[in-house]
């Protein structure tokens, strides 16, 4: 059982990571980040189930809280950027450089 869950978690994580690296749309990148977080959550919960203690599940809750907070801040930034630049592409927001 555990192995299947972990494989699924790995696949989800890789999809999320590839999405972050490849996609340009900030909203999609954002969703991919969520995907990576949830892949981790899945792994935590899996291990919690396997070892029969609640630590993993507690961590999963923390991750959700953090993810929620992140969405609040992140979406606000994305909306602001979109308003000023008329674009939600992460490549267009490239002024903060050398």
């Amino acid at each position: 059982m555990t192995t299947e869950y972990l494989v699924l978690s790995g696949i989800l994580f890789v999809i999320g990571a590839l999405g972050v690296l490849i996609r340009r749309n900030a909203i999609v990148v954002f969703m991919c980040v969520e995907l990576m977080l949830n892949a981790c959550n899945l792994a935590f919960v899996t291990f919690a189930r396997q070892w029969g203690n609640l630590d993993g599940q507690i961590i999963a809750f923390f991750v959700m809280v953090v993810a929620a907070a992140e969405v609040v801040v992140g979406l606000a930034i994305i909306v602001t950027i979109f308003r000023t630049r008329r674009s939600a592409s992460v490549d267009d927001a490239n002024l903060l450089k050398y």
Partner: protein
Amino acid sequence: MQTPTDIIPHTGGVIGVAWLMIALPLLGAAVLLIGGRRTDRWGHLLGVAMSLGSFVVAVLALVELLGLGEEQRRRAIELYDFIPGMVKMGLLVDPLSVSFALLITGVGSLIHIYSIGYMAHDPARRRFFAYLNLFVAAMLLLVLADNYVGLFIGWEGVGLASYLLIGFWYFKPSAAVAAKKAFVVNRVGDFGLLVGMFVIWTTFGTLTFKDLDVTGASNGTLTAIGLLLLLGACGKSAQIPLQSWLLDAMEGPTPVSALIHAATMVTAGVYLVVRSGAFFFPVGSGASLAVAIVGAATLLAGAIIGCAKDDIKKGLAGSTMSQIGYMMLGAAFGPVGYAFAIGHLFTHGFFKADLFLGAGSVMHGMNDEVDMRKYGGLFPKMRITAITFIIGYLAIIGFPLLSGYFTKDGIIETAVHSDYPILGWLAVLGAGITGFYMSRMVFMTFFGKPRWAEGAHPHESPKVMTIPLIILSIGSIFLGGYLVVNQTLYHWLSPAVGAAAEAPHFDPFTTPGLVTLAVVAAGVLLAWFMYGRAEVPQTAPAGNALVTFARRDLYGDALNESLFMRPGQWLTRLAVFFDNRGVDGLVNGLAATIGGSSGRLRRLQTGFARTYALSILFGAALLTGALLLVGNL
């Protein structure tokens, strides 16, 4: 040979307040310098009064000393603990120091008075008198201190006063440069004196004359100390090899040349040699021979330089070098020669001050012209100046029965009868050259046809200037005979400096004495044919190699330049190069490397969020891989 008598502690009386001699002019200098312009109106009078006050104290101290027995004439008074455990400051009042004090304050006062007239039109006259007073105070400290530390403070004090007075007209670049040169050259000598003092301290554990006992010290140590002190003496007294500053020092006002650079300060070296006699006269010590050689070499060099100078003051400066050479030569032979050396120092103080002030008086009447080729025929225009100058002239060439005759002849006799008669005969030759250049000076200045510049109206100087001249010329006539003929000075000084096995007897009819007279007469005659009878051209003729050699001060400056100045410049350039390229290069190079590499590293910040994400991924993968690896180990 008999050593000096013991120094006896003293309290009370005039000698007990001998410090007043130093304090009075010091107070004068302080009032004039701090008081500033408020003292302009009466500053010169205060200066003269303070100098005269010192003179009075010196005379009273002399009277008190004369009242004591010969064996008790070295009195030391204690003032305060100067450097606890090392030096107690005190004054040594003995025949030698009182004689010097009398010369300094006596001639000094006359020159103060003369300066009232000479500097009358100078807006900075008050400052001039402040410096003169400072000089008198420092010089008195030099001769009165009962230890080498006090002597050294006075030594530096007169150096400072000399610097300030040479550069008195500091707006003239030549004067500013001359002052600096005098200061720098004197530092070399002071270095010698200072190291000498260090060696004395480490060897004998005291710097006080009273406690200094050289018996038991090795000859090598004594010679080393003697040579170091001689280096100091050479600096202050403008002896070879440190002679180069004196000729340039003539940039100062003429009274300064008379007081500091002829009569008193430049003789400090002779004082040092005589006062430190113990280091020069153990049997077999080489230091006294070095003194004699320095003296003989300088007396010839100064005389040769004097022959070629058209600037009347520089001619006299060469002459001063030469005469101090005589004193050094005399002082080199110990108690036999001390009386003559010190005697010559006193008579020279008078006749050279007389000559310098006379030259100043001539310049005063000739719109500050110093070129003797622009003088000529001045005798009828300024009779008092001319007559006093000629008296000084006769005294310096050793005209029989005038001051210089007795003392110079004494030195020559001493040298001829010493172990090194050749030095004595060189001194005879020097006397001949002296006769030549001094006659040249007199003929070119006072006789012959006038060669004055346009607009010159030669006139006699005011009484305030001529009266000191008259007093000095009277001293130039009689002082030598008084000091030497009955061995007055010898007996007076011997408690302080030691006595010879046999008192030196003055006898004019010896071979060296007669030869000297003949040589001097030949020099005077030669000068008469070249400058008295013949026309003197207004511009100096080119002259042969020897003349150029003398005009260029025997290439002394060129020698210093090539030996010390240029290597010094190379050294500084090397240091600057090392600093710029080495030290700065290291620091700048380091900064440039860091700056450059950070400039390149900066390029990593592309601004593309996905690039960062990729590097985070790689980083995370790397960390994970590493953890896995560590976990498996």
